[in-house]
């Protein structure tokens, strides 16, 4: 729906005005034509045409409207019920009075017209007519009798004497004209009160017929101007031998007063007849006109009712549609303003409301987007953080857990959100211990604490620096955020650094006195050996030898310390790790025949780039370590396996695993097995695994040690195959190492 603003629909207004004007004009014309005006009778076909067209058009339009209304009503279109109700009320209000007026008018017309033609009037007229006839009949009879007498008198009179007789008669009776006709209707004699200029007009045919049959003729002839003439005729006695009938015709005037009265009666009679003939057509016409007017008015009224009802309900329909749209979340809905009335105010309010809603929603969306952005930023920060962050509520349900948390606790927490920690603890021993630790603290009522947690596990102990802070989450609910760092490596590095320092100092401190000891012993031997008895000389010889030998051993020991503490100096070459492993194994097979040494070498592993001597040292140290552990085992077995592994980033690693079936590492030592002087063996420097770890770290590799489930120890060394990988790794690691060392 598009807002059109307050713009009246001019087209509809124009159409309505034209309709109204046409309808009104037609009705007026029709009404006028019924009244007095001759000119309308000519225009009448057009008036009728106009009315009929209007009627038909109105009927069609109305039928369409009604059909639409019915369809809408059945279809439960919003507003259709209101429209239907309004239309029926309007319709009833209009149609009922119209019908009453119509029926009343019809009755009135019928009675009114009937009253014009009452029988008394007719009877009166007829009586008047009879009266005037009677009055005239006296004269007619009188004149006819006189004419008869004249005819008798003329019968015996020769033609020459006729004229005098006629003149006499004319004067006596005040006749207008007296003519005697002979055979072939020729005038034989004529007299007139006016000068005769031509021959008298031939007698009327019926007169001739009458006299030919020997009858007396008399007739009253109306003249124009309301005059009457009485024409009488009588046959003359037959003349023997004559061919035709002779007859006399006389014209008499009727006195004006009688003529006027008679004419008045005649006129009234005639007018009455004309009107009476119109009685039925008149009624019919009135009924027809009235019906036409009624139909037009009724249809127009119903149409108007529908039109106004629809106009009234359109804003309501718009409002319904608008509220539905708003209900569906479309706040962009704007309704056209229908008018400036209350409905317009309502629509205006609605538009205002949707506008506010839209603004509010946009505001909410903006702030939500801001929150989302903030959340994403936070998520990125959390993900990049090496510190584990875990947000939980009082029921230990995970709210937030970053990647580092999962990595440190050895569990997959990527899909842990919304699940309780206790449920997740089954997957990892470290997580289980972690959960246990925090549960204990919560149970003790401690909500804010900062402590170091020691977590044990198959792959060694981990030390976590853990801090917990309560975090208000929602109303009445409290969450906690636990931040923890894996400080195992840090502690290890600290330990390593400390040991390196100790080793360097110790080497110097020990090496310094060793040289004078050795020199002194050798000088004593040289000085006194020759001057001593063979017996004493042998003792001296043995003693000095022991001193020199032990000093040498001590030097070696000190050198080993130095080795551990010395700065790396790598000579990277490319060599076959498998070959090196086989070489070392062969060496120890011949050296320790009672231990079975098995190899499981990955053919895919071709060559690695590393310091060959140091890798050999790793192997030596690991094999020696294992062989020493197997000394008390009757059938010792040692297995060395190599594998080519590919990391997620595509970098290749060579993994060397050394397993034995000896007693394995002591559990409590497992976390510190690579520390110097941590050993469970009766002999050994305690530096073997420490040195191995150091070399592995110099190669940017990894080492871990654990016990096999079936018994025995397992040490796994992972070295990068290519030097470039190591360099990248080393670059990352070196600064940390140096920093740790400096610390």
């Amino acid at each position, binding site marked *: 729906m598009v807002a059109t603003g307050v713009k009246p629909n001019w087209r509809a207004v124009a159409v309505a005005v034209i309709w109204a004007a046409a309808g009104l004009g037609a009705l007026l014309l029709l009404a006028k034509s019924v009244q007095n005006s001759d000119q*309308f009778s000519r225009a009448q076909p057009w008036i009728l045409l106009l009315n009929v067209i209007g009627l038909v058009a109105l009927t069609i339009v109305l039928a369409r409207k009604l059909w639409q209304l019915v369809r809408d009503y059945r279809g439960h279109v919003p507003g259709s019920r209101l429209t239907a109700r309004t239309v029926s009320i309007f319709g009833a209000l209009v149609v009922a009075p119209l019908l009453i007026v119509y029926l009343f008018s019809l009755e009135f017309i019928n009675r009114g017209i009937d009253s014009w033609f009452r029988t008394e009037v007719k009877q009166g007229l007829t009586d008047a007519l009879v009266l005037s006839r009677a009055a005239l009949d006296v004269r007619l009879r009188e004149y006819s009798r006189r004419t008869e007498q004249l005819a008798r008198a003329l019968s015996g009179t020769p033609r020459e004497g006729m004229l005098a007789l006629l003149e006499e008669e004319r004067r006596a009776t005040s006749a207008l004209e007296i003519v005697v006709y002979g055979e072939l209707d020729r005038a034989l004699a004529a007299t007139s009160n006016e000068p005769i200029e031509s021959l008298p007009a031939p007698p009327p045919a019926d007169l001739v017929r009458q006299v030919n049959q020997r009858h007396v003729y008399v007739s009253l002839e109306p003249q124009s101007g309301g005059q009457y003439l009485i024409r009488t005729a009588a046959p003359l006695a037959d003349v023997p031998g004559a061919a035709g009938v002779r007859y006399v015709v006389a014209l008499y005037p009727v006195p004006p007063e009688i003529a006027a009265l008679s004419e008045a009666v005649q006129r009234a009679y005639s007018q009455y007849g004309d009107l009476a003939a119109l009685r039925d057509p008149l009624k019919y016409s009135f009924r027809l006109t009235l019906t036409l007017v009624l139909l037009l008015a009724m249809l127009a009224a119903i149409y108007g009712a529908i039109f106004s009802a629809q106009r009234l309900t359109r804003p309501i329909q718009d409002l319904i549609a608008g509220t539905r749209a708003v209900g569906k979340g479309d706040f962009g809905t704007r309704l056209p303003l229908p008018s400036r009335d209350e409905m317009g105010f309502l629509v205006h309010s609605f538009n205002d409301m949707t506008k506010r809603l839209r603004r509010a929603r946009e505001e909410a969306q903006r702030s939500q987007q801001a929150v989302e952005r903030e959340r994403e930023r936070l998520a990125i920060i959390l993900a990049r953080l090496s510190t584990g962050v875990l947000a939980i509520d009082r029921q230990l349900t995970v709210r937030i857990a970053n990647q580092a948390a999962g990595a440190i606790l050895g569990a997959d927490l990527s899909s842990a959100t919304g699940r309780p920690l206790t449920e997740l603890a089954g997957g990892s021993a470290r997580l289980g211990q972690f959960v246990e630790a925090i549960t204990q603290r919560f149970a003790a009522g401690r909500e804010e604490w900062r402590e170091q947690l020691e977590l044990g596990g198959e792959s060694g102990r981990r030390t976590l620096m853990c801090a917990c802070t309560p975090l208000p989450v929602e109303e009445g609910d409290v969450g906690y955020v636990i931040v923890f760092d894996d400080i195992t490596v840090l502690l290890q590095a600290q330990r390593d650094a400390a040991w390196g320092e100790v080793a360097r100092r110790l080497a110097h401190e020990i090496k310094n006195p060793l040289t004078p000891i050795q020199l002194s012993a050798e000088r004593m031997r040289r000085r006194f050996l020759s001057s001593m008895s063979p017996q004493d000389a042998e003792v001296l010889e043995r003693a000095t030898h022991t001193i020199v030998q032990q000093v040498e051993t001590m030097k070696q020991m000190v050198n080993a310390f130095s080795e551990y503490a010395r700065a790396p100096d790598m000579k990277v070459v490319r060599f076959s790790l498998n070959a090196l492993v086989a070489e070392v194994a062969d060496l120890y097979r011949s050296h320790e025949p009672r231990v079975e040494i098995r190899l499981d070498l990955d053919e895919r592993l071709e060559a690695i780039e590393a310091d060959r001597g140091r890798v050999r040292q790793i192997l030596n140290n690991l094999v020696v370590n294992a062989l020493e552990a197997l000394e008390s085992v009757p059938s010792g077995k040692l297995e060395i396996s190599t594998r080519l592994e590919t990391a997620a980033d595509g970098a290749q690693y060579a993994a060397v695993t050394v397993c034995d079936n000896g007693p394995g590492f002591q559990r409590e030592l497992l976390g510190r097995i690579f520390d110097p002087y941590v050993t469970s063996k009766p002999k050994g420097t305690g530096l073997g695994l420490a040195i191995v770890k150091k070399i592995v770290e110099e190669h940017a590799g990894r080492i871990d040690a654990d016990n096999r489930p079936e018994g025995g120890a397992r040490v796994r060394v992972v070295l990068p195959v290519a030097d470039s990988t190591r360099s990248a790794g080393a670059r990352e690691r070196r600064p940390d190492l140096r920093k740790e060392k400096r610390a």
Partner: protein
Amino acid sequence: MLRRAFILLLAAALTAWGGPAGADALDGVLEVRSAYIHVDKGVFLLNARIEYPINPMIHDALKDGVTLSFDLEARVDRPRRFWFDATVVNLTLRRELSYHAVSDRYVVREVRSGKQESFATLAEALEYLGRVDDWPILVEPQLGSGSYRISVRAGIRRGRLPASLRALLFWTDDWHRVSEWYSWSLPV
């Protein structure tokens, strides 16, 4: 024609409603039997013989005082090839026939001149009406060169009514008939 169509339409629509029942009051032959023109000193005079219907209903109506109008319509048209014909002259000779109750005679009155004749019988009156002699319809200067068409038709209607009432009769008038046109061409 138009009127008749409307009347038919309305009559059809309103038959059930009960209009005046309609036996044709002017039943019978109504035609122009013959007509011709003769020119006398540049004046075109029309002579025509018309047969008017005669039946008891007409007789009764006249006796009841009704006046009948007898119209003789004469028109002279100049046919045009691609357009409507041009009407040169369109004249109507109107005469009224009524029954004069006082004298028991039938009176024929020419409306324009007021001249009237009376007859003892209806047949005589109708015979008189059916004979039109020397009715001047045209003078020579009105005509150019070319061919003209002269048409004559006769009509009867119930006449001498007030205009308003005549207007009403438009709806339903059995008392109105016209004959077919009687036409012939007049080369000049």
